[in-house]
């Protein structure tokens, strides 16, 4: 179990460090460590110096966390594995914030936005003809969930009552539950729920906000459309891979003889492939070749709307979500009361549902 813990710790820490390493590529081209910079300052010496410092410090701290995490897991057990993950995120944010301050200071002292025409740009065709969500691709995860359900239905009459639902590392059952639709199909419900959730996110992303760069609007809209199309397919593929991984868990539960050494890779393998797929899609986003379009406009300096480079607050902006500056994804506009209340309420509802669900299934 400790070996599994050490491996899980190392994989998680390495994945997080890799994402942290990619910080400069995760944000928009003209956002460097959460600071809006003019197009021609993207490769400014200060930005380059801060990127190098950020990455060097990240490697050093990452090494320390990786090694001390191994010691921690070996000494105190797998329960403490989240501690190094938390430490990595704190270090990531700390270094990000340090770079953010340094670039902000240089930007202020050298007045980077002096004489530039700041603008905002939108493309109405993103609304009249939004990127299409690839609905046909949905057949893939739906087919896997359906296959899982069918296998479960076929196996149902032969399953023992009570049903073993938890196994130790040697594959010996150590927890049982009365045989019912709820206990036999638990994982299938999780599969269906995750598929709906991921595909829902994928569909929302198609309508999501686009950060159109006023300096090069046409190529920026083109890149956005390509990225969203890839991301939509990526989410569906991710859902399909998770379903596939969980199908292995279904099968192990229904066959009654799980082998930890084959079950774990069979379950986690597809999920890790899915994560890797999404990371590749996201990282490739900003590797577009330099377009030669230039309108002479610059993105508006909107740093004052960002608290600590992570929280977006702009009461004048009716947007609910904007692209995040730290990490990847979208963040809620806390300056929009309706959006804030809906998001906090929604999160609480999901948490409550998650806590109460086991009571219903019992």
């Amino acid at each position, binding site marked *: 179990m400790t070996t599994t813990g050490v491996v899980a710790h190392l994989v998680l820490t390495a994945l997080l460090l890799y994402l942290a390493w990619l910080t400069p590529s995760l944000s928009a081209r003209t956002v460097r460590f959460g600071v809006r910079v003019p197009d021609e300052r993207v490769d400014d010496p200060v930005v380059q110096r801060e990127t190098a410092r950020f990455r060097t410090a990240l490697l050093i701290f990452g090494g320390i966390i990786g090694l001390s995490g191994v010691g921690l897991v070996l000494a105190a057990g797998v329960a403490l594995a989240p501690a190094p993950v938390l430490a990595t995120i704190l270090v990531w944010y700390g270094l990000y914030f340090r770079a953010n301050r340094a670039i902000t200071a240089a930007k202020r002292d050298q007045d980077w936005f002096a004489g530039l025409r700041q603008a*905002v740009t*939108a*493309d109405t065709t993103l609304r009249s003809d939004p990127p299409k969500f690839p609905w046909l691709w949905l057949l893939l995860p739906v087919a896997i969930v359906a296959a899982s359900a069918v296998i479960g239905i076929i196996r149902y009459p032969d399953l023992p009552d009570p049903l073993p639902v938890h196994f130790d590392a040697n594959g010996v059952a150590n927890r049982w539950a009365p045989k019912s639709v709820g206990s036999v199909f638990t994982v299938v419900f999780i599969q269906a729920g995750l598929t709906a959730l991921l595909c829902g996110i994928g569909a929302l992303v198609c309508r999501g*906000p*686009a950060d159109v760069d006023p300096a090069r609007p046409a190529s920026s809209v083109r890149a956005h459309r390509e990225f969203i199309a890839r991301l939509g397919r990526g989410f569906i593929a991710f859902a399909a891979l998770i379903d596939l991984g969980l199908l292995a868990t279904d099968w192990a539960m229904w066959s009654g003889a799980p082998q930890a050494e084959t079950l774990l890779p069979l379950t986690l393998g597809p999920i890790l492939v899915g994560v890797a797929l999404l990371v590749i899609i996201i990282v490739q986003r900003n590797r577009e070749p330099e377009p030669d379009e230039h309108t002479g406009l610059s993105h508006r300096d909107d740093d004052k709307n960002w608290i600590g480079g992570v929280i977006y607050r702009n009461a*004048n*902006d*009716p947007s609910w979500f904007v692209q995040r500056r730290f990490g990847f994804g979208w963040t809620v506009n806390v300056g929009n009361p309706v959006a804030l209340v809906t998001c906090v309420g929604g999160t609480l509802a999901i948490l409550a549902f998650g806590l109460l669900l086991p009571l219903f299934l019992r």
Partner: protein
Amino acid sequence: MIISLDLSSEVPIYQQLRDRIVEGIADGTLPDGESLPSTRQLAADFGINFHTVNKAYDLLRQQGFVRVNRKTGAVVGPTESDEGFVADWTTRARTLLAEAVAKGVPAAEVLATCQAVLAGFDKQGDESK
């Protein structure tokens, strides 16, 4: 249609938005019957106050470039120009041409510019058809 609003310009933002949409109608990027995004949606896409977009849409409606309907929102639908419009437009064109003449731009160049701009609207209109 890609619309950029210059925040450092002296022209008010709602006026810029109104101007860009009128230009879009003229060059055919916004054909008759095309619906415009809702005020909130467009304001969110720009990241600006939705009252600003509202003001631009109001102006476009009053001046007869779009029809606003409770159900479908703002739809491009210019009304035919009448005598009043032509008179008003001539006054404004006079001011615009006066600026060029006062600055000493030769009349031939002024005419050539006007023709080039009109030809540009025609050409784009043909392309989008």
